[in-house]
């Protein structure tokens, strides 16, 4: 059974996402420590609220390093709302420094008619991605936020997956390889949202990293987070040959 780890760092309810993933046939692990990611096939970082306190809570629970490693290995990842924003370098909301995995900052929506942007809005895709397979082009998703990431740098266009308008358009979905983020809440977006989460479970099921388990996790020498994930990282590096470079980028941005 495909195992999805959902990070719990005290930011928002996990009941609906847990249920939505189970409905898609996944086994759900609520991850409260970095070690809880062991053996997972997919990782979801949900969350609403401010970036600064969220980063502090992730750090306190030893989750920052494991999340970074996971993303550097290009393993199936989905950031929802704040979880997507954290992938970028920092947030204008409180000036906090976030994971810095993707280039760009999280900024307040400019010239929005009203903030927060609350409600169902359409998502205009600029390219296809397995997450959106089978979902109609004009589908509505539920948003509740005042800020959104603004990708910058050479990768900006390549990682942008979709736009949504609230006043001017903002980036509402990003993806680089198997690492994706959505500004809306699929777990609150009715049948289209459930479908997107089911697509994510499929991506995780197809992840080659899943087959490596449970060797690394059960290695008696790998008792700490770094050891367990490090073993997998080494495996991933030899597999893709580029995880190390990504990790160096992430490290320099933090």
């Amino acid at each position, binding site marked *: 059974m495909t195992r999805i780890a959902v990070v719990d760092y005290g930011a*928002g*309810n996990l*009941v*609906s996402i847990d*249920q*939505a993933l189970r409905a898609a046939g996944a086994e759900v692990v609520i991850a409260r420590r970095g070690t809880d990611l062991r053996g997972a096939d997919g990782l979801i970082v949900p969350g*609403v*609220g*401010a970036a600064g306190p969220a980063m502090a809570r992730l750090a306190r629970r030893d989750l920052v390093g494991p999340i970074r490693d996971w993303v550097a290995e290009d393993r199936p990842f989905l950031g929802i709302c704040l979880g997507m924003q954290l992938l970028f370098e920092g947030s204008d909301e409180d000036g906090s420094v976030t994971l810095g995995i993707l280039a760009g900052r999280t900024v307040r929506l400019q010239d929005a*008619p*009203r*903030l*927060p*942007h*609350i*409600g*169902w*809005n*359409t998502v205009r895709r600029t390219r296809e991605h397995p997450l959106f397979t089978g979902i109609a082009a004009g589908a*509505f998703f*539920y*948003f*509740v*936020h*005042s800020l959104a990431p603004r990708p910058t740098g050479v990768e900006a266009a390549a990682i942008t997956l979709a736009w949504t*308008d*609230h006043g001017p358009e903002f980036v509402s979905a990003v993806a680089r390889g198997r690492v994706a983020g959505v500004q809306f*809440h699929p*777990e*609150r*977006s*009715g*049948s289209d*949202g*459930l479908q997107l989460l089911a697509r994510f479970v499929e991506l995780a099921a197809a992840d080659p990293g899943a087959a490596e388990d449970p060797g690394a996790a059960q290695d008696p020498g790998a008792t700490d987070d770094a050891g367990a994930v490090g073993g997998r990282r080494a495996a991933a590096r030899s597999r893709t040959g580029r995880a190390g470079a990504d990790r160096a980028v992430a490290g320099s941005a933090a």
Partner: protein
Amino acid sequence: MLAVRVIPCLDVADGRVVKGTRFVDLVDEGDPPELAERYAREGADEIVFLDITAAPEGRGTLRGIVERTARRAFVPLTVGGGVRTVSEMRDVLRAGADKVSLNTAAVATPDLVRRCARRFGSQAVVVALDARRRTPSPGDSSGESPAWEVVVKGGREPTGLDAIAWAQRVVDLGAGELLVTSIDRDGTGSGFDTALLRAIADRVPVPVIASGGAAGPADFVAAVRDGGASAVLAASIFHRRRHSIADVKAAMAAAGLPVRLVPEAAA
């Protein structure tokens, strides 16, 4: 484009959905999660549970209801009634609610709005504001715009607060949304108080949810077009099946308002 939200409100007492007029003559209407799921299927953009349980010991049951609902209805859920502290709000959110609506507790302790917004984010804090038109003093023909007073306890208790000033204050404190109910219109079926809605919507940057007085689809259109509301909420009009959520959305779409149409709702 952001759709106008249509929100059914379910009054919950002792674990059951009830309906009645002004908290009296309550009639059992069914299981809250079951009704919430039905509304979600019919196109509800959000669900609001208003806990009107009289006794404090009955309140624990609401958390169970919230959790069962969050497992069945994949639309946002707001819970109002009975939340008076940050930790009570935490419990309701943890059970699966996305937002909590504060009413009497906010009037009693305005700082609660600030503390809840700081802990959970403004997007999780709705302030419900019940307003009643002030009777103009005899002989007043100044032609000034009408004034509204904030009332609590289902409209039974005046507070002396000016509704517009209160709306601005709670937004400053961190409310991410306002649920504005006209107590004059509530339960009367004479339409929303669009002047009240407009007076508040023009003065706050956050979304305003219109409530109180809806009788037919045209009233919902007016709340948005004339009142400036971002969302519309109603209870009895939906429960008594006088109009469906799809009827309301069809009227809005015909009036050129953006709505989210749900294919299943047509079936």
